[in-house]
Structure formats: C-alpha cells, structure tokens
C-alpha cells in the first residue's frame, strides 16, 4: 500500500488529503504538524485577537475528521530534514518517517527584520494560535502596541489590538499602508479610516532597535524617536519555510519550484500552499502567492496528480479581500502597473461624488491585469475570472465600471463559463 506523507496540517495539506479520500480509500495518509491543534482557520486568528471569533470556533477539522478518513495525524512533530535519497523525513526527535510520496505543505513564517533586539520577549509574529494567545496575554500588561509594517497582517493585528483597547501605533516604511495591494488613492482611503478609529500611523519611518533587557521595553525608530511598549508585532510579510528543504535536493527559489502538476524536481515530492512557487496566471511568471484559496487549490491539484490524473493547475493569483472599520476592499493582480499609459497599459477609474467609493481596473492590451474595488465590491469576481483567462474585453470595456455592470454583460464573450441562459 502506497504511503503519502504530508508535512503541514493546514489549507494545502488538508485539501490534498480530502481530495485523495474523495476517490481513494486505500492509500495510507499521514499528516505532520509542528503545532498542537487539529486543522484550524489560520486567517481567523485576527478575529480571535479582536474577540469576534472564539477559540473553539477556529478549528475546522476536529479529531473525528482524521479518524473518519483514516488519516494518521502527528501533532507537535517538527520535520527538520528531508532525506530524498532514502524517501524519508527526519523529525526533530530524530525519528525517521518513510514515504512513497511526499507533499511539502509546511507553509510560511513571518519575516523578522535583522535589527538589534528583535528576538526579545514581547516581539511577536502573527501566524499561529500560539502567537495570538501570547499577544492576548501581553495586551493585558502593555497599554501600547507597536506594529512593524503596514501590510495586511500588520493592520489586522492593529485592528484586533485596537478592539482590545490598546493604544496602537503602526510603523510603516513606505509612504502608505497596504502599498503592496492597493494604489495611492485607495490606500489613503484606508489610512484615513484607520486614523479616524484611533490607530496611529507613522509612515516613512522604520524601526532601528528593540530596547530592553530580555523583555521588550521600547522601540527606537530611525528618526531617533523612542516609543515605550512591551508588545511589538512584526508584520513585514512572510517567507516560505524553505529551511526544511535546503539540503534535500529539492529546487527552490523564493519558494519550492513546482511545475503545473505541483510536482517538484524530485518525482516523488510535491509541494503546495505558501511554501510553493507556482505559476501566477495573471502576472504570467513564477510567484509565491501566499493565500488561502491558492493553498486549497494547489493541495487539490497535488492530490489529483498523486492519484495519477494528470491534472494541470491553471495558476495562482495575488488577490485580497479585507475590511477595516466598515470599509471593505478587494483587489487582485497588478494594482500599480509598471508603466501606466505605456506598453499597452491602461487604467480606468471611477469614484462617487463623496469619494467613498473607488474602483480601478488595470488593463494591458485590453486584457484585465488587476483591479481595486473599495466600498462597493460586488461583481469583482467576474473581472478576476476574465483576468485569469486573459479574455479580451475591448467590446465591453466601457461597461466594466458602470454601476449596472453584471455577469450578463459578458454573455457574448467566448470563454469557459456555465451555461445558464435558455
């Protein structure tokens, strides 16, 4: 009987195991996690931080799931090395686990900047239930929290801690928050909203040092300013956990390089999720798009290929949906084109009179390359699909940002879609 070993008990790993079990009850499946929980909704830890979701509601696959699906789950087991020559994974406790097929789905970790004092107690990443619990404990003793980074994770931590009534200061190197996923105008809308709700934002400044003896007591900015705080959250992006595979012979760049079957350069080893560098369907190059839907889809594609189906992956996309203090935004693909107006790039924009709604679409040679919808987000999924399939939208371009835009507008465009008109 074939043995599939999955390193990682989250979006990608669970999706792979589930998709195998839909069709195959024979193959032996083992899932390994260095954490102490059955599968949980990682993205909901910010809702747990803010108090909107209780801890027990985070778990999405409880113990009986593993039992019912004949999956062996090994918790609190950290893999430290892959011995691809022997088809074995080496654990921290020196145990070796054999496999016939391996799925590397060990995700990513917060990037910590290399500055003095960054490993002091009270400086936390925001990735796991354990991180969140520590943050909640610290929030009881530290009236001030400093967030390093104005990206999604940083702002989610800021939002959660503000809801816990802390004095929250966000230190952002770039001139705006959310600069990775929004353009200038939309990021300013969010910045205003956050400030209105009492979050302090220090743009154009970076942290230089974490001060304290063992415990964090303050941070020092590059301006020389010192802010007293015992809680610092690092939200400076994530990095795939490639340390595990460094000497395994598996090729990696930013993440593990996979082909369109989610296979690595080693035929018995697949990779999926935040660890994997797959093809980006919109940007048309290999990228790590560390997002939940991509991880689920990649786990599914890996499963089908492990079962020998030859199923190709259409590619991942950069796409985000968030809401802060009642202001929602969805954006995907390219949000700041390299040369607006040149090389076939074009931007179309609309806003309402009161500047509460903002929509922008980026096109290249009449193919949608990205979009940002602030405060009126419905129907953006139609654009995402058109972008992924690289559909020429020249015939409907003037309707895309109209308030009555809807799916029927695309009915004469030829691309794969469900038939639902008689």
């Amino acid at each position: 009987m074939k043995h599939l070993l999955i390193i990682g008990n989250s979006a990608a790993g669970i999706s792979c195991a589930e998709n195998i079990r839909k069709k195959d009850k024979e193959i032996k499946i083992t899932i390994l996690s260095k954490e102490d929980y059955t599968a949980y909704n990682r993205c909901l830890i910010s809702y747990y931080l803010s108090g909107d979701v209780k801890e027990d509601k985070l778990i999405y696959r409880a113990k009986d799931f593993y039992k019912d699906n004949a999956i062996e789950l090994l918790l609190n087991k950290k893999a430290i090395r892959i011995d691809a020559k022997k088809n074995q994974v080496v654990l921290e406790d020196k145990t070796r686990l054999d496999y016939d097929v391996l799925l590397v789905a060990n995700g990513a970790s917060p990037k910590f900047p290399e500055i003095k004092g960054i490993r002091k107690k009270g400086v936390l990443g925001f990735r796991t239930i354990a991180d969140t619990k520590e943050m909640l404990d610290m929030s009881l003793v530290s009236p001030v929290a400093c967030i390093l980074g104005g990206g999604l994770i940083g702002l989610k931590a800021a939002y959660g801690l503000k809801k816990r009534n802390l004095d929250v200061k966000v230190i952002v190197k770039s001139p705006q928050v959310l600069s990775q996923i929004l353009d200038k105008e939309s990021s300013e809308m969010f910045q205003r909203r956050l400030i209105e709700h009492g979050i302090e934002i220090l743009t154009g400044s970076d942290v230089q040092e974490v001060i304290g003896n063992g415990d964090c007591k303050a941070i020092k900015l590059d301006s020389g300013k010192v802010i007293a705080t015992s809680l610092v959250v690092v939200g400076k992006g994530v990095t795939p956990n490639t340390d595990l595979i460094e000497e395994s012979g598996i090729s990696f760049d930013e993440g593990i390089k996979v082909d369109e079957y989610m296979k690595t350069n080693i035929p018995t080893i697949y990779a999926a999720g935040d660890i994997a560098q797959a093809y980006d369907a919109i940007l048309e190059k290999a990228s790590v798009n560390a997002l939940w839907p991509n991880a689920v889809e990649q786990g599914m594609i890996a499963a089908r290929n492990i079962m020998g189906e030859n199923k190709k992956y259409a590619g991942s996309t950069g796409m985000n949906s968030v809401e802060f203090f009642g202001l929602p935004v969805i954006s995907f693909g390219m949000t700041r084109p390299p040369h607006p107006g040149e090389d076939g790039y074009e931007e179309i924009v609309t806003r309402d009179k009161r500047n509460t709604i903002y929509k922008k679409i980026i096109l290249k040679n009449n193919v949608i390359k990205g979009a940002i919808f602030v405060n009126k987000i419905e129907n953006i999924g139609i654009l995402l699909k058109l972008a992924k399939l690289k559909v020429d939208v020249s015939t409907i371009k003037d309707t895309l940002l109209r308030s009555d835009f809807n799916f029927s507008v695309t009915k004469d465009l030829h691309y794969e879609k469900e038939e639902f008109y008689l």
Partner: protein
Amino acid sequence: MKKLYYDPKKCTACKTCEIVCAIGHSPSKDLYTAIVEDNVSLPSVRVYVGQEGNFPLACRHCKDHPCVNACIASALSYDTEKGLLFNKEKCVGCWMCVMACPYGAVRTDKRDNKSVRCDLCADINDPRCAKNCPTKAIVYVEEKK
C-alpha cells in the same frame, strides 16, 4: 442535480423572484410581516435590468465552486446532491467568496456582516423564484449537460 436556468427574453423584470426570495428567507415567511421585520431579508436572486434585456441571476451552485476554496472560515461546502451549503453562523464577512465568484452571485449584507446566497430554497426543496415566476423566465430543471 437540478439547476436554475433563465430565459432573459421572457423576463419582464417584474422582480417577483426577488420578492418571493426575500419573503421565503425571512423569519415569518409572510409578506406583510416580513417588510416590518428588524432586518428585512435581502433576496439572493437579483434581476439586472439593462439595454439588452433583463437578466435574473443567483448562485449557480457550480461544480467548480471557487467560493468554497476561498472561504477562510469554512462556512461553505459543496454536496453533489444539494449543491452549495452555507453555514451562516460561521461566516465572518471577509468577502473572499465575493472575490472568488465568477458570476457576481454573492451579495453582502452589511447589517450583520454575512454573505447572502441562494440555497435553492432548501427548506421546501423547490426554489420559490422559479415556482412563482409569472412568465416562466426562471425554470428549475435537471442540469443541462
């Protein structure tokens, strides 16, 4: 599995489908009570009125269901017989499903921060929009292959 199909040529945009959908998903299921309920329920089918005709649209319960893969709260699942299943209690209003739906068929209810989507009237096993459409512009029939 049965599915909803639309004939835009027959649709007069009378919006009966929207009304019966909203009433059918209200706590009282009665028009005169439903309109004064605290949170007047939103219809999950909508008729788009355009120059080229009128187009009713609701969740397709599609086989691909990218919304299920996108849901970060595991509020969505798919059943080959029943179609898309939505556990409203789990929904946190992150709108990942709105982003993922290629038909624009998911609505947002800002009052309780939950998404709104067609459940094919699972309570009576017969979608009210099709049952009540006066011109038969909406039909509920076995899936066209």
